[in-house]
């Protein structure tokens, strides 16, 4: 009797479990179109007038482009450039830190007006946001400890962990290399900072980073620079741009024109020197 009961209990539990999965999948499919975020609406189709409040989205964990100071204020190369742009047009800028993995979604949903935070203008991103003119170029690199003597291909085929920043272009490069047949394990971490630490701690054999991050890092942290060597570059040059919502012609064009103007002045080099980028 009790055996029959326990079997019935097991079947009931299994039935609820399987039923839950089926119902969840069906409900998700049916409800998804209803709760999907509404398509992005253009807010700044025309040039935002003087006095407009523009919300600048930034990853506050990406020094020296965007970070915070001890008072919690946004600082960095991109923050300075955005302030120069805002001064030119008389905009009120709100610098809003946002998690990198959801920052484009926040632009689409209207929580942010644009992202200026060392964002690479990739083809995939260009399908969902509109980029300004590029303002900074860099190249991806494979870096390992100076004690690592193996070649690029030996490291990529070592079966060990190679660190990268989750959601960043280094993550995309790791995926591309794996798809190409290299035999390593991807170690996606929250930031480049932690990716480098994984190598110095011995948890990864190498790190995929970009010169936009490693350049300033090595200039300001010579002790870190002394531990690493660039094994090889990966791919071709990439560029950063400021990302705006699709349809925001006015904002995107204004940012592009302002960027070109600023880059044509000596202020630009001064800013690059100030932030070591």
């Amino acid at each position: 009797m009790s055996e029959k009961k326990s079997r019935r209990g097991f079947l009931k539990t299994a039935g609820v479990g399987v039923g839950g999965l089926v119902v969840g999948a069906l409900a998700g499919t049916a409800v998804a179109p209803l709760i999907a975020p509404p398509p992005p609406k253009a807010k700044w189709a025309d040039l935002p007038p003087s006095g407009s409040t523009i919300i600048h989205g930034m990853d506050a964990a990406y020094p020296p482009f965007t970070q915070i100071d001890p008072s919690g204020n946004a600082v960095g190369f991109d923050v300075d450039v955005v302030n120069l742009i805002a001064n030119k047009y008389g905009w009120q800028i709100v610098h809003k830190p946002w998690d990198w993995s959801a920052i484009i979604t926040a632009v689409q949903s209207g929580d942010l007006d644009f992202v200026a935070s060392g964002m690479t203008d990739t083809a995939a991103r260009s399908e969902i946001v509109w980029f300004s003119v590029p303002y900074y170029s860099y190249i991806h690199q494979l870096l390992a400890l100076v004690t690592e003597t193996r070649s690029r291909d030996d490291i990529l085929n070592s079966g060990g962990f190679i660190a990268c920043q989750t959601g960043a272009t280094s993550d995309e490069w790791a995926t591309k290399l794996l798809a190409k047949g290299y035999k390593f394990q991807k170690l996606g971490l929250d930031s480049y900072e932690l990716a480098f630490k994984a190598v110095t701690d011995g948890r990864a054999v190498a790190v995929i980073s970009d010169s936009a991050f490693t350049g300033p890092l090595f200039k300001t942290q010579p002790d870190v620079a002394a531990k690493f060597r660039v094994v090889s570059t990966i791919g071709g040059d990439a560029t950063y741009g400021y990302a705006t919502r699709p349809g925001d012609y006015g904002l995107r064009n204004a940012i592009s024109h302002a960027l070109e103007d600023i880059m044509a002045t000596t202020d630009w080099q001064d800013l690059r020197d100030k932030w070591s980028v």
Partner: protein
Amino acid sequence: MAAFAEFLPYILSGVVWTLGLVAGGIGIGFVIGLLMSIGQIYGGEDIKAILHAYVWFFRSIPLIVLLFLFYFGVFPATGFKLDPLACSIVVLGLRSGAYQSQIFRGAILSLGDTQLLAARALGMSKLRGIFHIVLPQALRISLPGWSNEYATMIKDSAITFTLGVLEILTRTRYVAMATHQPLIPYFFAGGLFIVLTYAGSKIVNTVYERTKIPGLVGRL
């Protein structure tokens, strides 16, 4: 270390945000959980089924998924434009309500039917009996379980960093990057969470000791 010391006030001010998240989430969860527990015990079959589905939904989905689902999906689609802090509090509250309902439900069931029967025998309505006889006892019994919910909530609140809520973890991440010192800020944040968890649990336990009914549960 010196660089980190400069950022100490910045991280410490995250405590206010974390406590705001916890107070809001626990408060909303308390109201939802209490009403749901009453519905689950004294409600009709239909109400019980609906409440069961609610509990099942919020207990089955990871918090980070709920946050994204509500912030980027449900709220915008229904016309509510909540900022990240408000959305996080609501989601934490909705989820906590599901868990708290089970704490209160267990406490009410532990009293048995006799308390409500006695109230009814004295001429009280069912609703009055629940609110004046059953709940005052059940709430006392549920306090230890409720302190676990506080401890869980304070740790879960950290996941709202994904929406940019400036609570302790979000600020710690920013400081770790700005100072190029990941270890010290995270150690400090861990210490803060320990202090907050311990202090909160201690307060709840003190309330429990002061309000417990001798002989009802535990020692006399």
